[in-house]
């Protein structure tokens, strides 16, 4: 929030004004530049090829796939594999495709994202402004736990949840995602709030605002950018989760990632590569969309949540 008006940039000096830049104009295309672009093109191709192969394969029929031209574009493109992956592919015993998994993932995603961001925002706000006794220790502990591999927690959590009756339920998986989102969410919100002037908080207290009013009316409206970042991190993270969904969601609520695995790894009959590819693409659609549409926000998200991406 700078107080000065933005300085006017001097315009480009006109020719003949006696004010032109002196010396040789810098060359547009040097060898170094050429190398740089070549490297970028190769890298892009390297990362795009698998995507291309997946897309091409998903649009082929099985006989065409058996011909073995992995890189060729389908002669007669068909979306049959996509339709099958979505509605009739067999995930274990059920043959209803991925649509059930998609809906499950959405049902897990929405409350998990909302809850984890809310809890993280309130925790970050409390830690940076109200500084309760032991706040530093709590924050330190949160950050340390963030580095412990998830797998370590699974067995104890299963035992705790079975006592609490949360195993194999939607509530259970939402709670798990909220807990494991807490360190990152707290970190990014705490850092955001810590960068705000403390005088703002004190002014609000003199004005008589309490804990929730300061949070809701002063701090949260200032946290919109960081909320967007948090949403990007949580949507991609929770959508891509496999192991928590498998362990905690229960058979009725298995997320799309788990269903995808069931389709791809089913061992009966011929392996339908086109369906597998279509199913994989369908599952990846949500995070892909997030990456595409969030652009610079996503980069900020990675920077903000530097502890884990």
């Amino acid at each position, binding site marked *: 929030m700078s*107080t000065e008006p933005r300085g006017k940039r001097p315009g480009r000096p006109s020719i003949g004004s006696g004010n032109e830049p002196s010396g040789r104009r810098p060359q547009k295309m040097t060898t170094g530049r050429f190398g740089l672009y070549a490297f970028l093109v190769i890298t892009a191709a390297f990362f795009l090829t698998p995507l291309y192969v997946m897309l091409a394969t998903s649009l082929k029929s099985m006989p065409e796939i058996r011909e073995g031209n992995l890189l060729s574009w389908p002669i007669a493109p068909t979306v049959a594999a996509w339709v099958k992956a979505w509605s009739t592919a067999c995930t274990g015993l059920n043959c209803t495709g991925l649509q059930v998994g998609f809906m499950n993932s959405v049902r897990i995603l929405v409350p998990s994202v909302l809850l984890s961001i809310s809890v993280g925002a309130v925790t970050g706000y409390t830690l940076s402004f109200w500084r309760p006794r032991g706040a530093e220790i709590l924050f330190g502990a949160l950050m340390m736990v963030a580095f412990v591999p998830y797998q370590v927690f699974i067995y104890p959590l299963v035992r705790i949840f079975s006592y609490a009756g949360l195993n194999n339920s939607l509530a259970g998986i939402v709670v798990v995602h909220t807990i494991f989102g807490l360190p990152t969410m707290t970190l990014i919100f705490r850092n955001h709030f810590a960068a705000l002037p403390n005088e*703002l908080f*004190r*002014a*609000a*207290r*003199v004005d*008589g605002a309490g804990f929730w009013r300061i949070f809701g009316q002063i701090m949260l409206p200032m946290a919109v950018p960081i909320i967007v970042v948090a949403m990007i991190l949580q949507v991609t993270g929770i959508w891509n989760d496999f192991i928590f969904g498998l362990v905690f969601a229960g058979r009725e609520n298995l997320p799309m990632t788990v269903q995808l695995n069931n389709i791809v790894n089913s061992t009966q009959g011929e392996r339908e590569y086109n369906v597998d590819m279509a199913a994989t693409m369908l599952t990846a659609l949500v995070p892909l969309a997030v990456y595409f549409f969030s652009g610079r926000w996503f980069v900020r998200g990675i920077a903000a949540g530097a502890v884990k991406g």
Partner: protein
Amino acid sequence: MPARSDVSIRGVEISYGPVRVLERLDLEIAQSEFLVLLGPSGCGKSTLLNAIAGLTDVDDGQIWIGGTNVTWHEPKDRGIAMVFQSYALYPRMTVRGNMSFGLRVAGAPKADIERRVREAAEMLRITDLLERKPSELSGGQRQRVAIGRALVRDAGVFLLDEPLSNLDAQLRAELRVEIKRLHQRLGATMIYVTHDQIEALTLADRIAVMKDRRIQQLGSPDDVYLRPANKFVATFVGSPAMGFLLGKLGTDPSAPMFEAPGVKVPLTGYAFAERPVAGQGVELGIRPEHVLHGDGDIAADVEMVEPMGSDKLAWLRIGEQPLSIRLPAETPVARGDRLHLKLPAHRLNLFDAASGQRL
């Protein structure tokens, strides 16, 4: 105007962990008084202000406002309003929103809010800014809004925490006058924290000069400027700064005398606070504008001349010791000149060389 708005600080102590910030501090601030807390950064002046506001808990002692012990009251229940150095305007609200926030929190009737915001805005001439966001305002306008937000609260005590420090020199002078006018008009008690001695001297009824967790001197601007209680106050207040000569007191008790190499100053007429001890090591302090020249018997060489517009400051050397003198701008003086100085006894300040306390 609330009935009473005097402030009483009684034996307040504050520590941040192992660091003691304020030490058994007592201070009585009268109704409608303009008190300035002046000191270098880290002297505890802002901490004291925050304690009065209720934003910092005290470890010991009591704070009374308007005859009520408010030591453990919430900030909003103390009858105070506060203005901050960084303005602390709520960035997502309009000026109107900022100014009315406190009243809305308190659930005041809409018409009442409307009227008080309008009155405060008129007083500060910011009526045409009411629908703007803080980011669309200049620094001076922002601080006006922040003052307006405090006015709307209708408090008896205003706490101002370095309100002008973020502004450029011209705006600072302008708003300084504005604040003084506001104080005269409202008759509210004002407690003003600053490290700028000019602000302190121009605004205050009384100044409390603070350093090292304590009040070093409490007195009128004249007291603090002309009769500093110790060497710290003498150096901190006044610009250009007071000059000092190190020496000792003469041995003749009937005709007290300051003696240093090349300097002999008779002290007849100096108001000693206590009986001087013959031969005691002292520092003589004198403000540049009080040094006389012409027929004196102290020889001083001019080392440098600083023109300051209305007058000029000459840096002198007396034997080995530096001193400065303030001269009218038209005085013909240049580097290498020799002046003959006179140091009038009633303008002197003598400090014990060891303790720095005024004699």
